[in-house]
């Protein structure tokens, strides 16, 4: 069957961009494997330790866009100690030598140094897009290098990174010749920036579509930005505090009135409620609204604002909106697809103002809802069953009850039935986080019904090893499983060791695993890295008869390249 020349194959393959499809194509035959690997420009590596730079470059020599993820998800919540890993430096060094055509780099939960950013900025002539999400280890000096040296930079997107802000003039390092910017997001930076430099930057980049500024950019700047960036579709404000009787305020309001293109609004890192009406003119066109950092707005003001947003599809909000506020959202935002409700008191079970009633209201009014993250005071089985009935389209369903073992407050039952309803009804569910009082039953339901589930997050749930086994046996598409504070031990871990090769990773902390169990797993499965994170010298690896000691944190993942050479002292790969 050699009637199809490789050039034709390559041309056809160009239309296939999904990683999963490309991976499948490469398995068809040797010819397809070769053609595919030489024509793959966008490479996605979900775990940077599953492979190494040398092998990446060997297989995909023409890579132009690389996505890398480093630390496990629970690192977001301080469960992974500083220094664990996820260093991007070796990747940039290798790519600098072998792939000068690199154009895009997207990193999530990785450690990035100023030196790497500097090397990046000088090594890739066509570099155009840098996206850093939840990264750390760099400062504004690194950003200055990127700004100064990347001649064709289109996108610099910094999302929720921990950046050492040296209060330098990194923004001023964009040369006058930089006119290619399409997207600039520096909302997570804490320091001052040069405002006139920002103004000039915006003015000379006519293609700017997305601009998210930080807290240091005051209210007065917004009007100047809007005038100079007529193509803006995504705006993130900085500080939104001003005297609402002033001329500045009214000027901004009229600028907003003339602004038909903005469909996405975020920021409000400092905000005074009296200024909010300035953005009302934008509301009718808004598709996406992120007020989750706007702690200065009370529930009523939020409701007034959202009442204007009939086209909203994505809403991130604080729980001070309350159940009543969510009822207004349900009435107004019938196109809603994604909702995230964050706690305004994130340091513990406080006075969270939303309950199951808010969620039920939303699901009644928003049938297109498919992604949910909901921090609440309480949840009932009845509510979850209603939600499951009204919204069978959930792809992501993450519920966090602030008291992690709270049962249904009306019936005092565990929430097994409620979550069971969700997994049975939502046949496309890919991601699930459960909380509240939960027994083995909920895991049985998940294993039985959640056929498309790829990621499961569990905390303080289950009664026995059977729970974990139900999930490992039943969820055929499971890729990531993260568990904390559950009574699962060696029996569950070791029952089906082959399963872990079909998954990206497993995290278990504060469970019942012992060192002996983890060692057994590592011995049986050489294709896995079984890492013990040993803070505070809790576990001694010598003498050998201490296999019964409990392991506080275990992280295992499949890999093609064996134990990683950069593991710190407190991480043991068994």
């Amino acid at each position, binding site marked *: 069957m050699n009637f199809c020349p490789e050039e034709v194959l390559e041309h056809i393959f160009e239309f296939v961009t999904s990683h999963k499809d490309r991976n499948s194509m490469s398995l068809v035959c040797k010819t397809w494997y070769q053609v595919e690997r030489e024509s793959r420009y966008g490479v996605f590596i979900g775990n940077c330790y599953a492979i190494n730079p040398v092998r990446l470059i060997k297989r995909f020599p023409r890579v132009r866009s690389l996505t890398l993820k480093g630390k496990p998800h629970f690192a977001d919540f301080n469960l992974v100690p500083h220094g664990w890993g996820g260093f991007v430096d070796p990747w940039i060094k290798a790519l600098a030598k072998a792939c000068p055509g690199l154009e895009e780099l997207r990193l999530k939960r990785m450690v990035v140094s100023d030196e790497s950013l500097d090397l990046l900025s000088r090594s890739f002539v066509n570099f155009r897009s840098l996206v850093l999400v939840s990264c750390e280890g760099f400062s504004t000096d690194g950003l200055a290098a990127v700004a100064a040296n990347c001649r064709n930079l289109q996108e610099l997107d910094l999302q*929720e990174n921990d950046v050492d802000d040296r209060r330098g003039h990194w923004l001023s390092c964009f040369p006058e010749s930089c006119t290619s910017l399409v997207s600039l997001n520096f909302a997570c930076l804490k320091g001052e920036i040069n405002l006139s430099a920002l103004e000039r930057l915006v003015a000379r980049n006519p293609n700017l579509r997305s601009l998210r500024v930080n807290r240091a950019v005051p209210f007065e700047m917004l009007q100047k930005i809007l005038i100079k960036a007529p193509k803006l579709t995504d705006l993130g404000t900085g500080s939104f505090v001003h005297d609402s009787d002033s001329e500045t305020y009214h000027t901004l309001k009229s600028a907003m009135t003339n602004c038909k293109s903005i469909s996405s609004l975020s920021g409000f890192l400092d905000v005074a409620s009296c200024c909010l009406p300035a953005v009302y003119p934008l509301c009718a066109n808004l598709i996406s609204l992120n007020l989750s950092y706007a702690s200065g707005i009370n529930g009523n003001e939020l409701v007034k604002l959202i009442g204007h947003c009939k086209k909203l599809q994505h809403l991130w909000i604080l729980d001070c909106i309350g159940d009543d506020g969510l009822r207004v959202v349900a009435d107004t935002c019938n196109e809603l697809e994604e909702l995230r409700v964050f706690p305004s008191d994130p340091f513990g079970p406080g006075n969270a103002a939303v309950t199951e009633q808010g969620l039920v209201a939303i699901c009644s009014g928003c049938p297109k809802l498919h992604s949910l993250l909901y921090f609440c005071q309480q949840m009932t089985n009845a509510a979850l069953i209603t939600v499951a009935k009204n919204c069978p389209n959930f792809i992501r369903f993450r519920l966090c009850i602030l008291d992690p073992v709270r049962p249904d407050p009306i019936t005092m039952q565990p929430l097994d039935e409620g979550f069971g309803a969700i997994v049975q009804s939502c046949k496309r569910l890919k991601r699930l986080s459960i909380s509240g009082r939960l027994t083995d039953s909920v895991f049985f339901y998940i294993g039985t019904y959640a056929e498309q589930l790829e990621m499961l997050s569990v905390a303080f749930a289950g009664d026995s090893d059977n729970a974990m086994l139900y999930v490992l046996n039943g969820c055929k598409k499971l890729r990531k499983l993260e568990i904390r504070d559950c009574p699962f031990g060696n029996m569950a871990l070791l029952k089906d060791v082959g399963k872990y090769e079909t998954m990206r990773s497993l995290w278990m902390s504060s469970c019942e695993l012992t060192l002996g169990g983890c060692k057994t797993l590592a011995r049986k499965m050489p294709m896995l890295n079984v890492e013990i994170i040993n803070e505070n*010298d809790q576990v001694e690896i010598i003498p050998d008869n201490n296999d019964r000691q*409990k392991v506080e944190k275990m992280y295992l993942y499949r890999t093609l390249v064996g134990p990683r050479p950069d593991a710190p002292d407190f991480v043991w790969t068994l």
Partner: protein
Amino acid sequence: MVAKPREQNLEFEAAERNLSPGMANQAWGLEDSATDFKETELTLGPPGESRDAGGKSGTKRGFCETLDLNLTGSNAKRNDPGAQSQQEACPTAKHPAAKAKLVGWPPVRALRKNAMRSDGCNYVKVAVDGAPYLRKVDLEMYSSYKHLSEALEDMFSCFTIRNYFNAGKLMDPVDGSEYVLAYEDRDGDWMMVGDIPWQIFARSCKRIRLMKSSETVDIEPITPPK
């Protein structure tokens, strides 16, 4: 190809017998009234479990028990002083019924937690034994212990603080006395700087002190070296 354990198959088959499509639909057809809940309650479940049993089964870990397990439970190793810093975040040993703070709970990103908390400033006093006056640093300005130590070095230039976290000791080159970097946390306890993740430290630190080693009797014991 993932092998299914034989025992688990039996449980699935048994469950399949319990559930019929009609039953499932009945459960999902639940109307608003919570009182109908019990009658239409899904009866699918692992065989052998009584539906009448209350929410708690005997082996279920309660919230407080969980915290105790973390602190003092079956693993004797957890009682060593090195675990003190973890205990600091879980003080249930004193008040099981109180709303204790768990590490990493609720699962909100550190950056978001910090953004909610402060208006951007977190000034704490820094005292050095023997110095005539105190200084103040804004912990919001720093993202790591290393950067804080650099700033402290600039402020109190007579000490080599930079290598603190490697060497574990400071010496005053003038009179040879040793210093320890300590901080007072929200509970009023004096702790050694460096044990806990930076973000948690920045949130819980109320003041910082460079203490002479001879005065460190009341400080929490240091993790014994490996």
